[in-house]
């Protein structure tokens, strides 16, 4: 991970010095452990603020929309796919971007780490295989694979799909992962069970919209939840309104979501709302053979029509 940091700094300094880009978007250390923050560097002297480790789960593609200047951006596999989605949706021009690709080995789930120890965590460091956690009066070493975010342990696109320069050799992609086990489990439920399952899943939701704000796909000038004329979604804590919000948010991500996990990571109450987007991701893959953000050459399934599109639900 340390090599990554050095290489990112080196590339960023070069880009800013040569004037290839006006700004580099990357990560800096957060004020609390395991919470790295986005960092915008405009001066070559400031590149030492940039870092890389397993806590860079925020999706930086979120900060690209409608920017006018030339930007260098640090992108792991899922960020790169979201950048592709932005390019396809005309939210940014490919020529404006210099993509610093980071072959990713997965991001650490801070909740799993916190659950593995007692007491407040003061410092977390990692090498390739282990994560060392230090707090008041304890120290513990955890297996890195076991504390990865769930979407990262299921990821099959760890290397950036587009990049101008990679910070390291590509990492081997994971083979034979069963990505949709949890979706299949829910699909097998009958309507009553599903209803109860989602009731339980969403019962904690406080409608803070952190999942929406963290998501690089959510860039509508007026979000459907903020609309009041007509008001399609009630603004209350009523379980039906909460459910409506989550279903509609997921539908807006259909065929676009890259399963970067930013929504789940941002959730203050730890709702696994990825089960919704994952279901749509699975449907897109099965019905249209589509995975979001892999190429700038193809149009997404929801804005194209093919005579062989599945239509067996229509009488």
């Amino acid at each position: 991970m340390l090599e990554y940091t050095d290489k990112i700094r080196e590339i960023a300094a070069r880009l800013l010095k040569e004037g290839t880009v006006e700004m580099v978007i990357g990560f800096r250390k957060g004020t609390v452990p395991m919470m790295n923050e986005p960092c915008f560097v405009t001066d070559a002297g400031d590149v030492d603020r940039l870092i890389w480790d397993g806590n860079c789960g925020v999706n930086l593609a979120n900060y690209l929309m409608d920017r006018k200047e030339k930007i260098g951006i640090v992108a792991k596999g899922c960020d790169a796919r979201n950048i592709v989605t932005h390019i396809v949706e005309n939210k940014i021009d490919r020529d404006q971007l210099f993509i610093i690709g980071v072959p990713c080995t997965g991001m650490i789930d801070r909740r799993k780490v916190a659950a593995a120890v007692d007491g407040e965590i003061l410092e977390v460091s990692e090498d390739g295989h282990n994560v060392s956690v230090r707090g008041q009066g304890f120290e513990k070493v955890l297996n890195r694979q076991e504390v990865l975010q769930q979407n990262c342990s299921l990821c099959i696109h760890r290397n950036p799909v587009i990049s101008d320069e990679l910070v390291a050799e590509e990492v081997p992609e994971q083979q034979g992962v069963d990505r949709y086990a949890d979706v299949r489990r829910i699909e097998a439920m009958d309507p009553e069970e599903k209803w109860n399952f989602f009731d339980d899943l969403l019962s904690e939701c406080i409608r803070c919209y952190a999942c929406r704000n963290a998501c690089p796909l959510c860039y509508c000038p007026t979000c459907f939840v903020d609309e009041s004329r007509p008001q399609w979604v009630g603004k209350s804590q009523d379980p039906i309104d909460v459910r409506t919000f989550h279903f509609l948010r997921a539908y807006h991500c259909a065929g676009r979501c890259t399963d970067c996990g930013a929504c789940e990571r941002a959730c203050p109450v730890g709702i696994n709302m990825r089960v919704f987007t994952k279901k749509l991701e699975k449907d897109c893959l099965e019905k249209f053979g589509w995975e979001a953000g892999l190429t700038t050459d193809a149009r997404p399934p929801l804005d194209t029509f093919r005579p062989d599109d599945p239509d067996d639900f229509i009488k």
Partner: protein
Amino acid sequence: MSEWEPKIVSFLCNWCSYGAADLAGVSRMEYPPNIRVVRIPCTGRMDPKFFLAALREGADGVWVSG
């Protein structure tokens, strides 16, 4: 209360099913009175939020017809 009858919100495309409904009316055909018709300019106007809004407001079924 007499026997329960479902309320079905139907979204009909102006050019297809809405026309068919009109023709059915002109031809004095009989069909169940359970549907409440919403005319949409095209089935492409449909949005998941319409389904959820209809159900939320107490519809027993939603029918979309192009």
